């Protein structure tokens, strides 16, 4: 056994080390947020409100913002119903073979490289259609959205006390009624959290859109079967450009994207629940 002094010395350096590493770990977030604001605010201040409405060549990202919202809306339309049903199934049969396989599949899909989803949807939808389109992008995003919402639905429902289940079945209700009319409404807050997390994720995805939506920044989207743009995709394109002016636009677009993300994310955290992305 080493002496008291060395043990105490080790202890103190341990605490200091832990604290330093922790702050090193969260420092990037503050730095990222600060840099995005420092670089993004001037360009938006210079262009004013037209930054949000104009087309790219007129110094705005209007079509990209419109595209992002169209994609969020369409992908939830496609993904949410499936996600809820799958989540409810996984809750109802946690121990059956299919139930367990479903849960594992959801976990795998949660971790899945998103670019693979994009290429898959391209080969299934964009190529047969002969064009990039909003609908193809929405399908890709729906596949990414699905596991988030399903996992949260399942976990939210598992938190309902078992007695509620017993009581509902005790009333002689059918399984459909017990689940869809009693247990789902009871866990709606948890389910909503999952939906918001899924949307926050989908709003910022770039890779699945690379080969599905095509990009449209010079006019507003007119139809869901035609190409659209999206803010993350626009940033990706602008960052790779050699021009300084494009980089400024990219920072401005990043600020807007960050604000959209915070707008979805903060409500989740106000109604506090442990969230895992």
């Amino acid at each position, binding site marked *: 056994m080493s002496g008291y002094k060395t043990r105490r010395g080790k202890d103190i350096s341990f605490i200091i080390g832990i604290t330093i590493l922790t702050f090193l770990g*969260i420092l990037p977030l503050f730095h990222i947020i600060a840099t995005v604001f420092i670089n993004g605010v001037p360009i938006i201040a210079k262009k004013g409100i037209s930054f949000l409405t104009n087309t790219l060549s007129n110094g705005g990202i209007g079509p990209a913002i419109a595209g992002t919202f169209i994609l969020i809306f369409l992908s939830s339309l496609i993904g949410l119903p499936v996600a809820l049903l799958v989540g409810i199934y996984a809750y109802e049969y946690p121990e059956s073979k299919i139930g367990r396989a479903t849960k594992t599949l959801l976990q795998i899909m949660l971790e899945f490289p998103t*670019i693979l989803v994009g290429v898959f949807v391209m080969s*299934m939808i964009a190529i047969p259609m002969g064009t990039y389109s909003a609908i193809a992008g929405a399908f890709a995003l729906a596949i990414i959205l699905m596991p988030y919402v399903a996992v949260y639905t399942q976990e939210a429902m598992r938190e309902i006390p078992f007695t509620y289940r017993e009581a509902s079945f005790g009333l002689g209700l059918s*399984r*459909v009624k017990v689940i869809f009319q009693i247990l789902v409404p009871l866990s709606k807050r948890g389910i909503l959290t999952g939906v918001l997390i899924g949307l926050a994720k989908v709003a910022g995805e*770039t890779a699945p859109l690379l080969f599905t939506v095509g990009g449209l920044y010079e006019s507003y989207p007119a139809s869901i079967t035609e190409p659209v743009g999206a803010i993350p995709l626009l*940033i990706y394109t602008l960052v790779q450009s050699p021009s300084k002016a494009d980089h400024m636009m990219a920072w401005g677009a990043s600020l807007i994207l960050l604000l959209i993300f915070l707008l979805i994310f903060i409500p989740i955290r106000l109604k506090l629940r442990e*969230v895992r992305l």
Partner: protein
Amino acid sequence: MKIKRLDMFQIITLPAVIFVFLLFILMLSVYFYNALPAFFREGLDVYFKNTWQASEIPSKEYYGLAAAIWGTVYSSIIGVLIALPISVAYSIFVIDYAPKKLKNIFIIISDMMAGLPTIIYGIWGAFILVPFLQKYIMIPLYKNLSFIPIFSYPPTTGYSYFSAGVLLGIMITPFASAIIREAYQMVPFTYREAAISLGLTRYEATKILLGYIKPAIVSGMILAFGRAVGETVAVSLVIGNSFNMSVSLFAPGYTISSLIANQFGNAYIYRHMLPVLYAGGLALFIIGLIVNVIGIYLLMRWQKNVRI
């Protein structure tokens, strides 16, 4: 075997479940089917050769993904090595030492980092992190220690495995720490009491408790590795995108996903490039699948043991 009667509930939900399974299988088969021509033409060279000859003349085309596979694994390992100490320290700090009010804030911060759009990490990485690393880490190391092979490449641009690894480390840390934090919280309180009542210092007590959650740390790292392997846009903006195969940290490289992101658009011009990219996708698919299944399995097994 008795055929069970399906009730209304299953009639409503089961189709959705089956749909998702079919979708996943379809995805795997699409990659496999589209990659087949590459295997027929080049055999295993697709994965084990480092060459990228795109040509107007189809017979001259030859592609190998070795550099991209190497870059994917190398940058992800750097990322995991960075994420490991930080995420463990972070979990210990948040659970044992952070004041109660700050605890929640710390958890919110790491959740926010996990959810932040990856393209924002990308733009920050390309414009801020890379120049910083080049100036303060790569150039000093190269100047003084370039006789060591891993520091031997001159960091002229800064876009390199190292930059990609650091950025990945930052991105996967919150994700790994969420898993480790949850596990560390599950350590039975009596263990803590026992360790303290032995008169151990905080360092010694923590060391023992960490031993208890070792499997969770391992699976957290495996899952984080899986995440790093699939990351696309942020990495492709900082890794330099060149067909290079080097152990030197400061050399530019490629990853499978950034290769797909960069080359897919113009692959249609060439006759044989597309199947090779699908083969890359298939490799990514299978690496992701294996890594995640192992990680999830280890985590579930550990959680089960703890509950008993």
